[in-house]
């Protein structure tokens, strides 16, 4: 398939892997964090770790927008969906995220009408088709999906649609990266920057990571060769003693970002003083809410919300996994109490979460498999 297979070429991967191995200083361990859940998914789906020398390990970051939604927000969403004449819409991977009483699927079994949409604009279509219902879009995601929510809000106002609102859970990536950088037990040598987020915000917002924290960052694409090349670029920087923000994904990411998208976001949304992230706790200025000018479209103002915080079980070690202190399987409840069917912690929730990716794709001993497959 064009524009896909080129980035999955095994010969090129072998060549890059050799160059990566050549850049590793003997006796030194390298730990890089891939910020984005999409990267985590690619790494496991293609078995990319088989190409990395043992000296290089990847730490899976906080960039899975589904995983970071706290259980209390899921409960709030179900509360809204349980009001009479409400149709709620959200993205597919939200459907299986549990709140304290279960998932959207469970809630639908009890009578709510929560539908999967592929774009927030589809929610507007549903609102037009169902004038006697109120349609609430549960918006989630980083700067990647926020512009499409913003455009939907602008469209709704332009068309004068009155039976539509947004339950806004958009989060921003930079405060989360900063929270990880500020954590005392952190041990990272560099970052693979989130590709899709960067198409919107550009590369400049990462400059403080290199300047203030002394960690190199390479904005990376989502195909396996993109990731290998980005690791190569990080190792090259470390060898040369450089510490910069580089853009490996330049075929998609402009250095300045997408001005139109940023403008639409600024017009409709503003930063919240603080927001709770599953696994990371409360982070200041890390999420967005609708501006006062869009109050009529703000589900948090249209409906009364319980807003009850749901605590993660104490045994859950997602925070440590997210910071790279623990590998997924080192968590005490991994794979037994916490599985993709009953995800106790954030990292097991979405297929992009580190633990879910390891559980679904990587749950075997690489040594045993090498012997079994003769690789």
């Amino acid at each position, binding site marked *: 398939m064009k524009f896909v297979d080129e980035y999955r070429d095994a010969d090129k991967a072998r060549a890059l892997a050799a160059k990566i191995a050549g850049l590793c200083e003997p006796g030194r361990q390298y730990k890089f964090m891939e910020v984005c859940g999409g990267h985590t998914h690619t790494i496991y789906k293609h078995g990319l770790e088989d190409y990395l020398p043992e000296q290089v390990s990847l730490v899976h970051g906080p960039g899975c927008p589904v995983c970071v939604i706290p259980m209390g927000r899921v409960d709030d969403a179900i509360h809204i969906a349980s009001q009479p004449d409400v149709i709620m819409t959200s993205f597919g991977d939200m459907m299986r995220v549990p709140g304290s009483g279960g998932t959207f*699927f469970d809630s639908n079994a009890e009578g709510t009408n929560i539908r999967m949409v592929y774009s927030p604009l589809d929610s507007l279509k549903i609102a037009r088709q169902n004038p006697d219902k109120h349609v609430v879009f549960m918006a989630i995601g980083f700067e990647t999906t926020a512009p499409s929510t913003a455009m939907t809000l602008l469209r709704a106002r332009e068309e004068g649609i009155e039976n539509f609102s947004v339950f806004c859970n958009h989060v921003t990536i930079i405060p989360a990266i900063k929270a990880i950088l500020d954590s005392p037990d952190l041990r990272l040598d560099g970052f693979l920057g989130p590709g899709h987020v960067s198409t919107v915000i550009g590369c400049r917002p990462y400059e403080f990571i290199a300047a203030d924290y002394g960690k190199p960052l390479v904005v990376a694409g989502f195909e396996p060769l993109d990731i290998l090349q980005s690791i190569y670029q990080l190792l090259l920087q470390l060898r040369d003693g450089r510490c910069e923000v580089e853009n490996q994904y330049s075929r998609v990411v402009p250095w300045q970002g997408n001005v139109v998208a940023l403008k639409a976001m600024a017009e409709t949304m503003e930063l919240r003083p603080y927001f709770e992230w599953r696994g990371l706790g409360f982070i200041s200025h890390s999420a967005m809410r609708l501006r006062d000018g869009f109050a009529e479209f703000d589900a948090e103002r249209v409906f009364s919300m319980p807003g009850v915080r749901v605590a993660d079980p104490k045994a859950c070690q997602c925070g440590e996994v997210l910071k790279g202190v623990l590998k997924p399987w080192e968590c005490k409840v991994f794979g037994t109490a916490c599985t993709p069917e009953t995800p106790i912690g954030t990292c097991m929730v979405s297929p992009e979460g580190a633990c879910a990716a390891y559980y679904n794709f990587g749950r075997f001993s690489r040594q045993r498999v090498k012997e079994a497959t003769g690789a």
Partner: protein
Amino acid sequence: MSTERLAPWAEQAMTEHHAAEHGTRGGPGEREQQVLDRIDRARRRKPKVREERITSAHGAGGKATQTLVEAVFLDAFRNSMLEPLGDAAELPVDSARLAMTTDSFVVSPLFFPGGNIGDLAVNGTVNDLAVSGATPRYLSCGFILEEGFEVADLRRIVSSMTAAAEAAGVSLVTGDTKVVGKGSGDGCYLNTTGVGTLDPDRTLGIHTARPGDAVLVSGPVGDHGVTIMLERGELEIDADLESDTAPLHGLCRRLLDDVPGLRAMRDATRGGVATILNEVARAADVSVVVDEDAVPVRAEVRGACELLGIDPLYVACEGRFVAIVDGAEADAALAALRSEPLGREAAVIGHIGDDPPGLVLLKTAFGGTRIVDLLVGDPLPRIC
């Protein structure tokens, strides 16, 4: 934010977890292996339905379906004919061996490129018999119709059923009609039950798979599932694709006749090829090693799956099956399949190994390795 509460389901999972054994010691490699062994034990525990109500995941063919079937149905109905949970049950009747199967059809939309619910209902049941090694003979059909459903549409469905039954050499010998109130059904639901005859001295079964065996598919995977997804019109993607719904009795017969080392066949409907391979790995306590490059997938199917973040290995087919054959007869099996029009694009996609037992491993086209597990529910599109 003064109030705070706990999630009861999570507390319960933790209690069960603490009741099980715990603690790991040893070097890093050893410790990871201990954790993996612990997970393996947890997965082999008796399945338990945790949900209080049925959700859509229970119908998706993955882990939730398996749990429901084993914990509710098998537990209650248990007998030697049901227990293998094959595509069809084997019934000893005097000296003959009969195969019996049943399937319900609730596809939406009812009409789609390449077929409709009618031929799907006939082919689905014919195929469950055929892959069990039986010659399909008789079919029953139950119609559950919604008030207001158009008779012209019903006629179209019935005429496709007639054509499909004729092609498969089966007779529709009994049936039933029920009408439900408007809003209680989706136009038309069908159930078909089929009876076929088994060869007297041939036993197939996925539990007979052994290391060294070859794994084949009878054609490109995922056509039906992707066609249906696109036809629902939620995606606004157009592709030149048709459902693969087809009767497989001819193809299965050819394999039975030409390949004495045939161990098992399974049609890759709900849950796709990946689910079948997991069933094989579990039933025979072997590993299944699949070469991603070797799995035939049409470009249109791959493209749609890429866009949605879905793996074609999990997408339903209605006219494809997985065959396990003695490794020495892999070439013969491939030749036999390819000699039939429906099997022209058949391929050997992997082999059976012995380690790690119970797991399906995929050698990715990129050159890495990963496992292919059962899905929890329907494959869901990812947001990024």
